């Protein structure tokens, strides 16, 4: 969501810079000089003075490119500037003391990238500045996520075992169990569950036959920590999506 917002801001700034530049194009002396040179080149060409035509046209090309590249830099500069401001704002809202204590590596990464973004901006390497600022914002996103998880009760722990229940209106089966958010949140992963527990089934080759009170092990699939047995009374976070 934050990424979308950031992208939207970048697009708006870019469009504003583009429109502003288009309005000033007619007043751009280099652009006007290029048009004049182009006209002179055409006149020389018509008169048969191809050398002059070639020279004037090359000068016009150089000026068109100069205006375009100047404009490119202008657009990039605006983007980089906007990202640096966003970065400053995000940093100012960060709980530095806690981030430094709990996730110093992520904080260092964000600060290093922010510094690199500012250095690149000062060196007028706006594309590099944008790249670094985006990397710093990504590091901040990760830091925010880690802090939020830690605030929610420390490290996320999901259940390692599940006891088959008689759920009214929605019978337990490998498909449904795999779809529970605290299991895999994805019914398509039912076979992982089945493979890990088929020896416990009355008919191992029949995944459709499972019995209430059977205890199934839930193998971790994304490096998540799993322990204990699922407690319906307890709130579990969803398995983080990779």
């Amino acid at each position, binding site marked *: 969501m934050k990424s979308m917002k950031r992208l939207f801001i970048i697009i708006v700034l870019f469009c504003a810079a583009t429109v502003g530049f288009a309005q000033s194009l007619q007043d751009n002396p280099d652009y006007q000089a290029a*048009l004049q040179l182009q006209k002179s*080149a055409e006149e020389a*060409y018509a008169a*048969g003075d191809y050398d002059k035509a070639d020279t004037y046209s090359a000068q016009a090309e150089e000026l068109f490119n100069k205006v375009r590249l100047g404009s490119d830099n202008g657009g990039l500069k605006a983007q980089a500037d906007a990202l640096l401001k966003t970065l400053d704002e995000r940093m100012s809202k960060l709980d530095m003391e806690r981030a430094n204590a709990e996730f110093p590596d992520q904080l260092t990464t964000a600060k290093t990238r922010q510094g690199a973004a500012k250095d690149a901006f000062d060196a007028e390497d706006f594309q590099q500045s944008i790249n670094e600022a985006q990397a710093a914002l990504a590091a901040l996103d990760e830091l925010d996520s880690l802090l939020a998880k830690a605030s929610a009760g420390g490290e996320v722990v999901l259940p390692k075992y599940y006891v088959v229940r008689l759920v009214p209106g929605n019978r337990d089966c490998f498909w449904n169990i795999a779809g529970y958010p605290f299991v895999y949140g994805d019914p398509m992963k039912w076979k992982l569950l089945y493979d890990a527990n088929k020896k416990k089934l009355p008919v191992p080759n029949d995944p459709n036959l499972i019995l209430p009170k059977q205890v199934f092990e839930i193998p971790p699939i994304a490096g998540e920590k799993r322990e204990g047995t699922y407690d319906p009374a307890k709130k579990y976070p969803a398995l983080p999506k990779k």
Partner: protein
Amino acid sequence: MKSAIGFGLLSIALLFFSGCPTFDPLKDLPQTEYDTAQKYRARIEKFHFDQYAPDQFQAAESAFKSGEGNMKKDNLAAKKSLDEANADYKVVMQKGIAAARKIEDEQISAVREKADGIKASVAAETEYNAAQDAYDRAAKLADEENWEEAQPLFQEAKQKYESAYETAKAKKEKADAQFEKTKQAQDALNAQQGGAKTE
């Protein structure tokens, strides 16, 4: 006896004053006319002018043969024949030069038009002017019937017009390529500006 002696002396005196009736082959030899005819013949042969006036050439050749045959035999008749031959040779030369020049003019006109079409007089001014100069000199020499010097100058004029055309063509193509590059640069700028007006 006295009268006989007087008659004899008178006869000797008349013979002395009226000239000797013996023939001198070198006296009145039309050598100049003969040399002129030979020069005409060499020029006509060199430039193949006989093809442009075959009748006159045949007449000239007959007269020349006749004149040559009478040389040192009947120098007066030889001179007359050689004069006739030279008159015909001159006509052959004039007609030949006129015909050859017409061909040169046509060829030069074609290559000059080609050069003018690409404005070579501006784009390759030096070469074009050199071509024009060579042509003017050639035309003047041709007017003077000096085809020996006129002909190579016509060739030179043609080559220089062709060279001027090639130079102008190369410059024009270079300018065309540059125009395309400039247009691409302008299009790129306009595309960047979202189709901003350029004029």
